[in-house]
């Protein structure tokens, strides 16, 4: 309590200890106003028709499978795998059509992953 009293008496001198400059840096993110929320239209054609025909197998006599609806690279339709499996499948299905640099990179990556998965680490 006595120290508190002495602090009060020397309050004036304490005020003179405030820095007149800052010793930090400013943030790189500068915002002068609250940014506006982005307007997302939840009812575009794509969003409102998302998922239609996903049950084409069970409701449509099994003539088609939902994996036929997937649009994408030919080696990835209805397939899931880790990187090595995807790359070897790509090489099997599309490899002879690829450009030389891409093919070379693909082969390098396959051999790297093969050695990595089968020779090093705990899971080989």
């Amino acid at each position, binding site marked *: 309590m006595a120290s508190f009293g002495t602090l009060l008496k020397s309050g004036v001198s304490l005020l003179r200890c405030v820095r007149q400059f800052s010793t930090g840096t400013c943030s790189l993110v500068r915002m002068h106003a609250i940014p506006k929320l982005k307007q997302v239209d939840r009812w575009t054609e794509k969003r409102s028709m998302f998922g239609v025909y996903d049950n084409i197998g069970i409701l449509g006599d099994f*003539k088609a499978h939902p994996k036929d609806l997937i649009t994408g690279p030919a080696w990835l339709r209805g397939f899931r795998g880790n990187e090595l499996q995807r790359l070897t499948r790509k090489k099997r299905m599309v490899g002879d059509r690829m450009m030389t640099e891409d093919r070379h990179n693909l082969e390098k990556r396959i051999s790297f992953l093969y050695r990595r998965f089968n020779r090093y680490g705990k899971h080989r």
Partner: protein
Amino acid sequence: IYKSLFLLRLFSSFSGESALPSNLRLPPNLIGVPREKRAFPASTDLPVLRRCEADIPAHLAPVQTWLQSLESRHSEPLGVVDLHPDVFSVPVRLDILHAVEVWQRNFKRISYAKVKSRAEVSGGGRKPWKQKGSGRARHGSIRSPIWRGGGVAHGPRGPTSYYYMLPMKVRVQGLKIALTSKLAQDYLHIVDSLEIPTPDPHYLQDLAKHRQWGDSVLIVDVGEEFPQNILQATESLKTINIIPAIGLNVHSMLKHESLVLTLEAVKFLEKKLLWHDTRFTPLYPFKLPYSDLP
């Protein structure tokens, strides 16, 4: 004005009075027209316009609901129809519904994110400076991941697919649960046919608003041909959409607030969804011919 009537429907479905929970806090600026629920046909003296084709187990009773018509805005319901309880009143498993919805979002997803690894970035074959003597840290190539402009060590690699399939019966059960929830929450409407008097989109919007169908309506019918009027009306509308019965799925049912089925669509769905309850396990995929499957 205390705008608690808006939630009257949600809380008074099984209790007679309009009792709201005492710890309910509503925002003061809540707007909404109170959704009056027309009493479900509970009395047994109304003539039933449609019975279920499939056999109903003895311990279950068919669910009943009104049959409406799209002819005019003020038309009264035409009568009462029966719905099969094993499709329209199954126990609501929210985890199955969630699993089916997540499946629908992800099985089609192919992410095309790819970054170059240190082998793929151009350059970086030569050792930048000799191993010893230059005073700098030792490096083998200028494109290693610790260098600026170098490859990424563990980045996304190539188009990745997130494809997987849920068991067929889980997907079927998901559809049944979605239909059950729509019926239980008074968002399912059965209609005799999709004939409307005008191809005007405002007519449909008016109708949906007057009958308190909600913000968005999904109309389902069997077959590839639809009446021209309804096709033109829904073409320009964003929140009222029409799909064939083959395209029915859980995501669309959850996205649109209310669901309108025709009688043929109900018959089609019941037939397709009930078959899975009593089928044999497939010895080979169903798309190959079976002697007893059509």
